């Protein structure tokens, strides 16, 4: 019952809300979509916090996504121990970067007198959840080796089962609680996404690569 609620009900609620609210927010309150940068108020510690955090988390996130989409590739790569160590070590160091980064961001949020002014309660909740997410990930990675292996055999099939609307929570039942908590806070991040500044991740401006440098808009002719 509890398993069903936490690992079937909750993920669906988080996912559906993330999609629906993000779209609603984008159409009804487009003004609220922003990175909410606070660099203008404080730049030096943001450099360390934001750079380390983003580079770290983006690599870790890509690793998770890769293992989600191509679990077999990870298993094949891990066939040789040396390659497994290399992968695990890279992942771990990226996670450590993210950890240092998010700690720096939190310290900055609470110490800089100007940044404090633009810190909302949800900012604090988000940073706390992200801190827990990264810290628990590192803990799991160190204590329950090898994550890249069991993610591909257990977690990935479980996540796919959710996506295919045929949930199989039993796949992750044998995993330790610490790991399950890491999953749960991951779903919590997804749930928080549409309600917090995290929406900036949805509007990463990759179209810039293809855009012409100048933008001219005519009332009648539109964009040219």
């Amino acid at each position, binding site marked *: 019952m509890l398993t069903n609620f936490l690992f079937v009900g909750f993920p669906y609620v988080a996912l559906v809300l993330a999609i629906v609210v993000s779209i609603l*927010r984008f159409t009804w*309150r*487009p*003004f*609220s*979509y*922003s*990175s*909410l*940068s*606070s*660099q*203008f*108020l*404080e*730049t030096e510690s*943001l*450099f360390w916090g*934001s*750079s380390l*955090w*983003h*580079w770290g988390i983006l690599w870790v996130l890509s690793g998770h996504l890769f293992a989600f989409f191509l679990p077999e590739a990870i298993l094949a790569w891990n066939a040789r121990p040396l390659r497994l160590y290399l992968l695990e070590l890279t992942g771990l160091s990226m996670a450590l970067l993210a950890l240092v980064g998010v700690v720096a961001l939190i310290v900055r949020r609470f110490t800089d*007198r*100007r940044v*404090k*002014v*633009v810190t*909302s309660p*949800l900012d604090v909740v988000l940073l706390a959840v992200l801190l827990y997410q990264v810290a628990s990930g590192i803990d799991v990675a160190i204590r329950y080796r090898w994550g890249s292996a069991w993610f591909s055999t257990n977690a990935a099939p479980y996540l796919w089962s959710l996506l295919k609307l045929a949930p199989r929570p039993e796949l992750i039942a044998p995993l330790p609680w610490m790991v399950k908590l890491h999953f749960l806070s991951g779903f919590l991040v997804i749930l928080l996404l549409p*309600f*917090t*500044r995290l*929406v*900036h991740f949805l*509007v990463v*401006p990759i*179209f*810039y*690569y293809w*855009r012409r*440098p*100048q*933008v*001219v*808009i*005519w*009332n*009648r*002719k539109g*964009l*040219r």
Partner: protein
Amino acid sequence: MDIRSQVAMVFHLDKCIGCHTCSIACKNVWTDRKGADYMWWNNVETKPGTGYPTQWENQEEYKGGWMVKDGKLQLRLTSKGKFLQKIFHQPSLPTMDEYYEPWTYRYEDLFNGPEQDDQPTAIPVSKVTGQYIDIEAGPNWDDDLGGSPLYARNDVNLSALSEEQRLQLLSIETLVMFYLPRICNHCANPACVAACPSGAIYKRGEDGIVLINQNVCRGWRYCVSACPYKKVFYNWSTGKSEKCLLCYPRVETGQAPACFHSCVGRIRYMGVLLYDADKIEAAGLKPDAELVTAHRDLLADPNDPAVIESARKNGVTEQVLQSARKSPVYRFVKDWGLALAPHPEYRTFPSLFYVPALGPVTYSMENGVALNPTSTEEIFAPLEQARLPMSYLASLFGAGQEAPVRYAMKKMLAIRTWKRATEVGDVDLKVALAGLREADCDPEQAEAIYRLTSLCSFEDRFVIPASHREQAVEVLTNPLERKGAAGFGFREAPQRGF
């Protein structure tokens, strides 16, 4: 040929009295809000000086504008391929400390203070934190401080001067200063637009006004760094960038923007310029020495049939074409060669041009008594003796080239002398005429310049075509959708986040 129209501007620096009325007019209309409190879309700085934000001209640090790299025009800030590297932290972004921390005073303490021996005082409190602050800088704390070690000495343009000239500008007996009012230049090749990863900044086709779509801006803050004039501002409360919108609701109805309308010195002119958008890139690739000419070549003759034809094809209306023919800006910039764009080497091709300031009328003092000048030489010092070194103005308005600045100054001086001859009569007319000729001018042009400079009425200064109603955006969208939106498109309080 791709002719577009642009509402363009001239500021006649000889007439600016540094009163800041323009800044206040703008502040009251647009930026008297939380998060925008530190912004001065219009500011007036004293030159030589560091300006606002401090040392905005230092592109080594701020990386504003364009540069030519491998034969291509590229933003100094970042190349397209590498822009994402700087998105998490923008290394060249100025912070609030480079502008100033806005403050107010706790006036209520004057009334509510407890009974005590001393008078109550209103302490300064930060508009950001609400806490007491020790005020260290303001938006115009360089005001009138020509020659000061803090401001004048750190003017970026001084690097174009010799050590001797620099010393002269800094000593009390020989220092010199003038005012430089600044707004967004609504450039023809805006760096802010090109730098915005979200594509939120755009130039309006009909009048060339550069605007930021507040619903599309995501606070990536590239525009703030990329604008070499630092005329895009980051609203620290809403997390969106904002900039001068040239009072477009006024311009659309044929009225001058608030800063223009209120200008006490009547230094501001507004009129239409036609320009050839096809030529922009080639012009931007020209070496520094040719930039002033290349910029003037962009501007198209509103009487040329080919230009008119191309403009019509782009939907430029007859009314706009008509006012382009009467444009005071075209006369100052193209016909007379008097007005120059600020820092052409940034290659954004501003639509705001400045007539450089001539030196003041000179006269000597003896034992505290002002002597009557006996010759025009004494009244109007020759250019060679100007206190402000030509190389300084060349750094500001000529991409380092003295020739275009010298041309403008010489002409203005010749006209001064000519008017002295015709009005006061203590200068030989023949000498004055020879001076005019030498300055590439004739009595007719001199008279026209004199009239538009000194006797200009409201209608002479502002030749603004009201936008055609059938072109206005309201006609193209459902009016009921806009009802109650007060012309701003959405009626949401600009609050931070969700």
